[in-house]
């Protein structure tokens, strides 16, 4: 058996360990949503984050980093996503309170293209397609299909859901997203533009 390739590989792997540890890349909640849905979802059935505390998720994601062969950044992203979901307590938060008093959403008027484009950008930034079918390319199935959400729900419902995912379902897996009212309206406008 040729040992030189094995020795060379081990030395190369050790060399990779020398780069600075302080250069960890930023991990975002949206990245975590993608990893949770696609990478974790290859083995696990998605479960509510509230089953574990933030501290537990810190330990569990480290364990899964070794078991699942993911990077440190992906580990931190999933951790941030799960811990972000834990922050949704089901109690009415300030955003939710604001949503409940916001002006009703009109689904019948013409679509505002600039507002819809802003909404599309927000949908991409928050990785909604990791869990929802949105547009043509995504295949997320953790959450409902958003291409035809207005055949089932009102615009006001979607606004409320974006403000407080657990207002109607305490076990919702959807994370609490940092969106103000104008951003929520932009997402609703985008969903109006793609509805089928």
């Amino acid at each position, binding site marked *: 058996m040729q040992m030189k390739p094995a020795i060379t590989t081990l030395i190369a792997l*050790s060399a990779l360990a020398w780069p600075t*540890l302080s250069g*960890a890349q930023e991990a975002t909640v949206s990245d975590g949503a993608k990893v949770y849905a696609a*990478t974790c979802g*290859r083995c696990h059935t998605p479960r509510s984050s509230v089953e574990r505390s933030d501290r537990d998720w810190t*330990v569990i994601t*480290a364990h899964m980093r*070794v*078991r699942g062969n993911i990077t*440190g950044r992906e580990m931190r992203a999933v951790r941030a996503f799960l811990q972000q979901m834990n922050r949704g307590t089901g109690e009415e938060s300030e955003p939710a309170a604001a949503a409940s008093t916001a002006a009703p959403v009109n689904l019948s008027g013409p679509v505002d293209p600039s507002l819809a484009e802003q909404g599309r950008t927000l949908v991409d930034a928050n990785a909604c397609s990791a869990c929802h079918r949105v547009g043509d390319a995504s295949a997320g199935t953790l959450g409902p299909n958003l291409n035809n959400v207005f055949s089932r729900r009102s615009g006001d419902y979607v606004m409320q859901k974006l403000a407080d995912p657990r207002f109607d379902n305490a076990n919702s897996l959807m994370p609490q997203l940092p969106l103000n009212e104008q951003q929520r309206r932009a997402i609703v406008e985008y969903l109006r533009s793609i509805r089928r």
Partner: protein
Amino acid sequence: MDSARVPPRVALVVPLVLILASVHAGVALAQQRTAISPSHAYVLSGYGTAGALYTQDGERTFFTSVAPIFLFQFTDRVLAETELEFELEEGATKTGLEYADISLLLNDYITVTAGKFLLPFGIFGQRLHPTWINRFATNPPVFGGHGGVPGVEGLLPILSDIGVMVGAVLPVGGIGRNVTFSGFLTNGPMAEAMEEGGAGMEEEHVPELAFGESVEDNNKNKMIGGRLGLVLAPHFELDLSGMRAAYGDVALPPNAGTQLHLVSYNAAAEYRVGNVEIRTEWLRAEVDVEEADTMTMSSEIELVKRWGGYAQATYRLGSWEPVFRFSRVDPNEAEADDELSQYGFGLNYYLTPSISVMAGFELNRDRLDMGNDMSNNRLVIYWAFGF
């Protein structure tokens, strides 16, 4: 086959590399602010089963098992993990140590693990064998009942061994897209204990390799192996694995003292998009076997080639999940008519994401000439839970 004995250079270089990596990690740990308070953090997790097994030849039995997992994080870079197994077998409680290891998360791309760990050989052994992760009610026959439903002896047991493992992940084009590599150096397999003859088997008996059965290596040879993973899309992974070891020595002349080798290869893939999940894994092993002639007290070395694997598809419909699995095992390519083909039909119902009722029916075709009659059709129903 060439000897796989570890030469002195590797025996010197490998520990040196690990010492250098550990020193580097130690310096980095001292410089890092820990994310965990001085009280440390630990998690009790695990999985278990409770169910019933019905076989065509009349076996009717309830069974149960539990596998607690202890995770302990010393700092944000050091993690210890242990999994125990408890199950009932022949009226007694059988206990096992699935793994007990400590990992250093050196940086965002490299981990080093030492202790007893699940070998990165394919996907099923390391990631999919827990009952609440495995979508079918039984393990694929090539892997036996380890961590799954009892009563089935696999040809190539799930692999757990003592040694050191290095894991590397290289991002390629965006989050969730990586090339991974895991390499390991462990004690390696041993042969089953024999009453007489050499380290191999009596005539017409395929050797059963025992991994992790001893805390010490039985020879100067270490098993070396690794897995290359291609995760070119977050929902699709393709893995190629290999391992090589010597597991014993020939006992009888004229080849007494010659090492008996194992070489094994594995190709595995995992794909999930939407409600559809497809898993497949196929492996091949070439094993030196000592065929003893007790009349002349001599033996010859025969190369036994064996292979097996499975392909499985699931579709999630709300809380229901139908499953189909095809499995095939050939314990000895040179022997005709001893292959097993298994068709598995399963249906799972998820009470919660981590608690399911699993039902699986195995349609087994052909008999394996190994003392384990696998031609029985089987029906298994049980609770599977992860916690």
